[in-house]
């Protein structure tokens, strides 16, 4: 589904991604871990097409199409979704209007008619329940004045509504209380299928107990320096990152 080859990118003349290789197939869950500032969010930004990142090398294909050539909206319409680490507040745009617009633009891209009001309402109710998203929040301005946890939950609510092929969850667990973490993870697990895939960026093994990954990758200094199965996450939890940084540091000399 997603095929990243030797991806390099810079921001403001600073090389952030230094050659990333990653393949994600339908039905898989990949976890990406790594110390602060290693480039995890940057990878998500490059994949979703954030303007200030400049791709300096490599390629990314998404279901056979060249992802890097598409506008951010077309990437979303093709089925890519990012649950942001820091969701933006958008005063004056109502959550629900925003979602209706997004949903219908995606449908239009696939030559489908706008969703009927009744059907949209039904879908909204169903997905609200799935992630236990407070109905009152759906009518408020998008993320405005939401608590940290409410914003994260809203991201997963949007994910549930838009039903993407590939979802990237950037530290969705940070800011969630223990109950919320359980609710959100079980929501994600219910959305899983053999047709979609997830990339879960996290610092904590705890989330991976709920959303069990098929693969765990460690990103350090703009490269994936180690890949393994879910046991790798446990090892990291125990030992920290130092043992992984060392060989990477020497390798780059």
């Amino acid at each position: 589904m997603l095929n990243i080859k030797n991806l390099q990118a810079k921001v403001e003349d600073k090389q952030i991604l230094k050659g990333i290789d990653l393949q994600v197939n339908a039905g898989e869950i990949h976890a990406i871990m790594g110390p602060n500032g290693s480039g995890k969010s940057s990878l998500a930004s490059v994949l979703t097409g954030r303007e200030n990142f400049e791709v300096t090398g490599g390629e990314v294909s998404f279901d056979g199409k060249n992802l890097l050539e598409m506008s951010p909206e077309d990437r979303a319409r093709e089925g890519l979704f990012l649950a942001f680490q820091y969701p933006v507040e958008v005063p004056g745009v109502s959550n629900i209007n925003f979602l209706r617009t997004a949903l219908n633009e995606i449908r239009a891209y696939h030559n489908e008619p706008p969703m009927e009001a009744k059907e949209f309402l039904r879908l909204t109710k169903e997905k609200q329940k799935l992630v236990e998203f407070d109905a009152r929040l759906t009518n408020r301005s998008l993320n405005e004045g939401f608590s940290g946890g409410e914003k994260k939950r809203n991201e997963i609510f949007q994910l549930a509504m838009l039903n993407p092929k590939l979802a990237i969850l950037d530290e969705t667990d940070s800011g969630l209380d223990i109950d919320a973490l359980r609710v959100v993870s079980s929501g994600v697990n219910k959305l899983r299928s053999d047709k979609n895939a997830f990339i879960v960026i996290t610092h904590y093994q705890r989330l991976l107990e709920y959303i069990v990954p098929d693969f765990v990758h460690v990103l350090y200094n703009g490269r994936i320096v180690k890949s393994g199965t879910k046991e790798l996450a446990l090892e990291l939890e125990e030992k920290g990152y130092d043992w992984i940084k060392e060989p990477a540091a020497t390798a780059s000399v």
Partner: protein
Amino acid sequence: MITTTTLYDRFIDLYKENETSREEGWLKNLRDTAFEAFATEGFPHIKMEDWRFTNVTPFLKENYHLQPRRAASLHGRHNAAQIPSLDAYEVVLKNGMLNEDIAIPGVKISPLRTALQNSNFQHYLGKYIPIHKHPFAALNTAFFEHGIVIEVDKKAICDKPVHITHVYNAEEPVFVQPRILIIAHPGSKVEIVESLVVIGDKPLFINSVSECYIGENARADQYNLQIAPVNTHIVNFKQTIQQSNSLYNNHTYNLPEASLIRNNLHLDLNGVNTESHLYGLYLPGGTQLTDNHTVVNHLFPNCFSNELYKGVLRDSSRGVFSGRIYVHQDAQKTNAFQQNNNILFSDNATIDSKPQLEIFADDVKCSHGSTVGSLNKEALFYLRSRGIGEAAARNLLVRAFAFDVTDKIQIPAVKDYIEQVIIHKMEETHHEQ
């Protein structure tokens, strides 16, 4: 022979020519004083503080007809229902003229000419307008011919908005000077919507003055929808006087494409416990210049005024905002707020924003602020990352920005109409890019 008489000279000559045909009495005195003021000052120029950013000189070069000819050609050529599904009392002014009285329950609308035969209006007309500081208002006062008087009876509640459609014939260059006088007697309530229809594409200069008197316990809402073709130049002076316990809401919309819109909105709070809201939105595009000068005079204690003007400036347009609040010594317990926020939508657009507070009382709550920014890039990316196209995303953000102004429109049909205009204009912007 080619003469190069200036517009100023032509007005001076015209006043003298008409000497004999002019009214007598109070009206003549009013006009003479105004004429003197205009003759002394001349047209405003950029060396005057209030006109620093707005150079009217280029707009005065046309060879305008100074008095529109009676234009039968206007007949039946405009569609008064230009605000879809607005349920209102329709008043159509053709080149400023109303042909006959219109009677609405509790409201009397008369042509200015006939109304002014009643000398009672000398207590209202031009009473508060600072003609010595505002040459255009002085010019209008010296020369106005047509317009209307709207009088709302004591305690009368006008059940529907009064919609004034100003229709102008610009099949030849013309300089018009309409005048409106609104008197809402104590305890009454009225909503007035003004819009424009211009026929023809020759230069049209509208130098309008309107006065609005709001009696004790009365309420008046005014909507000024300024949408006109590019060759239209608008200078408007609006004076509102509020008595005790009255409420006034002004909604001003500067919309494309009139090349010049200059509004002066002056509010005198002449009694205690008044409430006033001034909402404005300007959305200039092309090389349009929109300029809003507002003055709020707090003269009595316990009054509340709130002003919110927002601007989205596109293309190579220019915006000017100057908001002045005076809190006079006796105006204790004043609450006065003012905010001006701007979004520059293109690198070539400019805004000059000048909020000013002058406070001479000590027990007051006042604030003012002004911001200039561009569309929030993070928000734009967020919307796009959910599949919303760039143009639609910008549109959503602009409407969201304008929302706290448009949301204040109390007449649903007017609100829908304005929102449609905003969407339409924003879409046009993207076609151009």
